[in-house]
């Protein structure tokens, strides 16, 4: 009731804050080394073709209408596309792509535009293919747990529809109210439930996608087992719109738990986080469904900018642990024993636990709204890194030492259960010299520690020069070969993912 009111109010103020802000610098100006490919420039004839195909209302070409489609969620990049297309069917996507391929028009596929690596907006003037109107649920089978839907369905809406049938999505993330399932699949999004349900390469049973030349690839299997031939669907999971446009997906959905609890802990040291995580895995076992950490700076930012309230006093580290299962009594017994243990042994200094939906929402907000809150600091350098778990937090002290007063805030939070930390460095305004201090240093460190320079957000526009820190040359060469075969004219999301 009133917490949703507060939430709406703070969202409003965020919108107000940003609409009064100056636009981010155009990507072509901020990254002058990147040259526009030899693509056609949009003409009236092209536009006419699109209008004839989709009708006037599903082609945007007024610059102000196109603006939000040109800027990414964290305002780090801005393209200048003058054409946003909103197909409603796979056939329309197919016609758009075959036309663009033939006329050498570059295309940027876009879902909810919540991607954090600049992959979802054009670098120059690429035509934007938005999936927003492809948002129909085709079927939900409450026996097999199989969902078939179009790529533009919003994650949270799928969650609601599945909830009615006692099912849930196998993934959940802070952007759920805006991100779309085609975007999730195209980025192989991880999120808050990965520790329990695994990633989308396992949960996606089928994909329908359109290749750059307009060919429709129907791998829309609803079968849990289907070993006939190569598993082509994996080409489209995590390829960030560079190999094809995902138009439909089939997801294997788990049963929605009937018993859910959430605990929030304050801890004195990172070592205690590791010990608590280990105990959680052992003592909570199959009911552990989320295990997240945040540091003091991350909690401070939501307290300061969003006026959210922490359940406990200040500690250097915090954890959020969720359990879910099918028997409240069983889960509660396990959870209580675990809580008494970690408190009794001094691993957890203070905390709270609840199974009330409203309170659980408020606690999740502390974790899920960090990115949103950090943007009030100004500009955000954002890194999404996998590390061996013992080194999970090691980058943060190093970055603090290296950047000193150049940064407003250096914070770390993330999916401790999956070894995936989000390192965030905020500054009042974008500065090239600060960027040079961070990159490639942060990637070198990650590589030395045998981590991944992109754990779950993908490579997008921001990271192609650094993928060699995590992938061998032969692997990169094979990726390039695949790209050439699937999209010989390189019209799909150019300048993204692969280094040129």
């Amino acid at each position, binding site marked *: *009731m*009133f*917490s*949703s009111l507060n939430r709406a109010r703070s969202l409003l103020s965020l919108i107000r804050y940003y609409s009064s802000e100056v636009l981010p610098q155009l990507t072509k100006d901020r990254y002058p080394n990147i040259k526009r490919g030899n693509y056609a420039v949009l003409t009236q004839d092209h536009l006419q073709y699109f209008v004839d195909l989709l009708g*006037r*209302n599903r082609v945007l070409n007024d610059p102000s209408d196109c603006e939000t489609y040109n800027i990414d969620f964290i305002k780090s990049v801005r393209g200048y596309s003058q054409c946003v297309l909103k197909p409603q069917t796979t056939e329309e996507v197919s016609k758009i792509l075959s036309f663009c391929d033939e006329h050498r028009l570059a295309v940027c596929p876009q879902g909810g535009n919540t991607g954090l690596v600049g992959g979802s907006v054009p670098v120059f003037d690429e035509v934007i293919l938005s999936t927003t109107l492809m948002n129909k649920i085709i079927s939900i089978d409450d026996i097999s747990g199989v969902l078939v839907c179009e790529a533009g369905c919003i994650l949270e809406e799928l969650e609601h529809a599945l909830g009615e049938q006692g099912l849930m999505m196998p993934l959940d993330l802070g952007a759920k109210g805006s991100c779309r399932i085609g975007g999730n699949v195209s980025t192989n999004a991880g999120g808050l439930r990965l520790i329990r349900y695994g990633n989308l390469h396992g949960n996606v049973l089928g994909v329908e996608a359109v290749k750059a030349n307009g060919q429709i690839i129907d791998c829309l299997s609803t079968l849990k087992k289907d070993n006939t031939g190569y598993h082509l669907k994996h080409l489209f999971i995590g390829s960030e719109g560079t190999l094809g446009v995902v138009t439909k997906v089939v997801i294997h959905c788990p049963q929605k738990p*009937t018993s859910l609890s959430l*605990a*929030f802990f304050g801890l004195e040291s990172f070592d205690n986080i590791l010990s608590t995580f280990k105990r959680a895995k052992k003592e909570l076992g199959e009911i552990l469904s989320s295990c997240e950490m945040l540091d003091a700076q991350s909690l401070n930012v939501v307290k300061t900018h969003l006026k959210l*309230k922490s*359940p*406990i006093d200040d500690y250097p580290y915090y954890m959020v642990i969720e359990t879910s299962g099918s028997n409240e009594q069983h889960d509660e017994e396990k959870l209580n024993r675990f*809580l*008494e243990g970690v*408190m009794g042994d001094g691993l*957890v200094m*203070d*905390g*709270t*636990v*609840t*199974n*009330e*939906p*409203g*309170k*659980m*929402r408020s606690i999740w907000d502390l974790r899920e709204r960090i990115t949103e809150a950090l943007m009030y600091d100004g500009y955000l350098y954002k890194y999404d890194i996998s590390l061996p778990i013992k080194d999970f937090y090691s980058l943060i002290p190093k970055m603090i030492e290296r950047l000193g007063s150049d940064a407003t805030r250096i914070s770390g939070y993330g999916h401790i259960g999956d070894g995936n930390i989000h390192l965030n460095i905020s500054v009042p305004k974008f500065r090239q010299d600060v960027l040079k201090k961070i990159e490639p240093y942060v990637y070198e460190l990650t590589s030395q520690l045998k981590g991944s320079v992109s754990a779950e957000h993908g490579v997008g526009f921001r990271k192609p020069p650094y993928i060699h820190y995590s992938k061998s040359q032969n692997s990169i060469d094979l990726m390039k070969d695949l790209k050439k075969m699937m999209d010989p004219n390189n019209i799909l999301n150019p300048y993204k993912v692969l280094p040129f």
Partner: protein
Amino acid sequence: MARVLVGVKRVIDYAVKIRVKPDKKGVITDGVKHSMNPFDEIAVEEAVRMKEKKLVSEIIAVSCGPTQSQEVLRTALAMGVDKGIHVEVSGPDYETLQPIHVSKILAKIAQQEHIDLIIVGKQAIDDDSNQTAQMTAAVLDWPQATFASKVEKGDKELTVTREIDGGLETIKCKIPAVISADLRLNEPRYATLPNIMKAKKKPITKITPQDLGVDISPRIKIISVDDPPVRQAGVILPDVDTLVTKLKEGGHIP
């Protein structure tokens, strides 16, 4: 030092979507997550703060309802209340339990426990009655300070700021008194783990309205419970001319 009584009602959690029963005689509560009425949490918080300031010696929480009402009493105990009283009312009795009954129960307990101050939420988010504080004050013939957004407790009297239409009103009243908590009175704390554990050992006494001599026979009959009308979806029109035509058709503009 004063002894405080707080009323805590178990209601469907505010984050849960409410569903009407097929027979339209009530809403579905089975398998639905409940929690403490948010305004009652504010009442508990205020009492606990008074105790922390050493203005209060003991806080007792009362919940009227089925067995599960003990869950909200546990929450109250974990927030800092000293003991709980569960007044068991279940089944059809609970469906017709009204502020008139609850206020008599609260009044009886207040007399038995030598209470100086009763704090309840201004309303429960399920039936939105906004009557319990007022009726309790009437039954006891105590002064009432409703819609409180600030309470200063003196020795013999209270200074209370009330939220009224278009502004604030500050009043003084004698103790004993009844206060109803408004949204801005305070921001309730979370029950912390050490306190949740301690609360397990605090006492909850179970009694019935009959034990208190309160008659809870129904004063109302529920005829029907209906969903609010569904809002019609908006439409996007291609241009201003169509909009003007539509507005004219609908008689919104001449």
